[in-house]
């Protein structure tokens, strides 16, 4: 934006009188030093000491004067330049601190295990917990499935029509939304995973990546819908109070 601009144009307020140098060349020099100090303090992870500033700014700069000027510039802004012991740092203006606590969402990364289970559910849906275990070769902790349910990317779809009637899992519309997929079939197939270098080109014969169902909302023939009673059992619905 200001690339290559060496002219320093922002005005030093003359009304402040004494502190500001009258000699234009010296003023220009100081103004450029102020810009430099501003960038250095901004980019630093720690408060920057006056000594560090002296060593990084051009020689002959009156660092205290430059910092005083910078502090003045930021005095009434949304961000202030503050001095902490002998060092300088930018901080949000005190009266705007409320803005910093308004954001109440914690960004969490999914654990490796959760990502793996999620991806198995996405590709192999409808899939039961035992089947997930079979594909992954490790047991799935309850916490992992709970986390995935909390993301609202995974849902219980129904029950498999096999002994024990295990619950089947699948993905939700939120899942599609989050990962930018129009439909579940847009998940890359085996060839594309290979092409992207995610899967070795030399997989054992018989290895395949399933094509997810075209309409994941429809129950398959070997699935029963979840009933209210199922939901109660799974703790997803509060038991109905029967009046006695």
């Amino acid at each position, binding site marked *: 934006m200001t*690339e290559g601009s060496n002219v320093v144009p922002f005005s030093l307020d003359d009304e402040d009188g004494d502190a500001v140098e009258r000699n234009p060349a010296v003023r220009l020099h100081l103004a450029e030093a102020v810009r430099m100090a501003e*960038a250095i303090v*901004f*980019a*630093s*992870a*720690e408060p920057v000491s006056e000594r560090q500033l002296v060593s990084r700014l051009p020689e002959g700069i009156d660092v205290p004067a430059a910092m005083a000027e910078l502090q003045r510039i930021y005095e009434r802004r949304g961000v202030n330049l503050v001095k902490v012991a002998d060092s300088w*740092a*930018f*901080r*949000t203006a005190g009266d705007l601190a409320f803005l*910093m*606590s*308004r*954001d*109440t*969402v*914690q*960004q*969490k*990364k*999914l654990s*490796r295990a959760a*990502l*793996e289970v*999620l*991806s*198995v559910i*996405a*590709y192999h849906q409808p899939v039961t917990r035992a089947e997930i275990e079979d*594909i*992954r*070769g490790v047991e799935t902790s309850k916490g992992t499935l709970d*986390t995935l349910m*909390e*993301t609202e*990317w995974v849902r219980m779809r129904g029950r498999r029509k096999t002994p024990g009637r295990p619950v089947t899992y699948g993905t939700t519309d939120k899942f599609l939304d*989050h*990962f*930018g*997929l129009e439909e579940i079939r847009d*998940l*890359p197939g085996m060839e594309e*995973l290979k092409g*992207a270098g*995610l*899967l*070795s080109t030399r*997989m*054992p014969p018989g*290895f395949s*990546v399933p094509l997810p169902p075209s309409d994941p909302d429809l129950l398959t023939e070997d699935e029963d819908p979840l009933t209210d009673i199922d939901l109660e059992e799974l703790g997803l619905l509060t038991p109905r109070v029967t009046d006695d």
Partner: protein
Amino acid sequence: MADALESKAQKPAPMDRLWAENADERMTDDPSLVVDVAGFEGPLDLLLHLARSQRVDLSRISILALVEQYLIFVSQARALRLELAADYLVMAAWLAFLKSKLLIPKLPGDEGESGEELAAVLQFRLKRLEAMRDAASRLVNRNRLGRDVFQRGAPELVIIDKRNEYSASLYDLLSAYAGQRQRQAITNVQIAKRGVWSLKQARDILARMVGELKDWTALDHFLIRYMTGPEERATALASSFAASLEMVRDGSVEIRQHEPFAPIYLRERQSAPRQTEGAS
């Protein structure tokens, strides 16, 4: 225009400097490039390099001269017995075809593109590749975040509430999927049964059989009965031979062989100890 290209041909382009330090890496992490004689990225890259040496605008290069240079390059490489990747040879064949088209004027009944049309295609591809090269160099020479331009070094974190919002990219998801499927597939392969006879197994088998061996018997003869398949033959022989030597040592069997590679005979030890031969 010609001047600009000339200087480009003479001193290394800005990208070359940038790439120079990666030259070694390329060879290792990109197996398809190993046979790449002079460090070219495929035949088109080589052609572009040759075209630049003509020191004129790409729109004005002589395609015929370029084709000649390429064909000479390939024949020299072969004379030096350098192995050229198939891509280069395919290109050579195509260029030879192009050359013949360019030399022989198109006849009215001819099917397909004329030599000039094919040459234009080649010219377009070279220009496009060169444009991408230049663009890449302009791109990487921009002010870059974390190198020339910086973000706030000490971001002020917002106060966090209990609500969680999970994030993962499609890439995270796909690599998690591919990674575990691959791991599983490979683990399965390793688990597949391996037909190895342990020394102990072989010895147990021999010990159980030793009572039956009143007379000299070829080792293979009775081992065959225990072999479940040809793939186990080598390991069964090796293990049981080693086991039989142990049994000779502790005096439970006798062993003999007439000459190297001849059948090995075994029998239960007779009351009077006999000399064993050729068991080494």
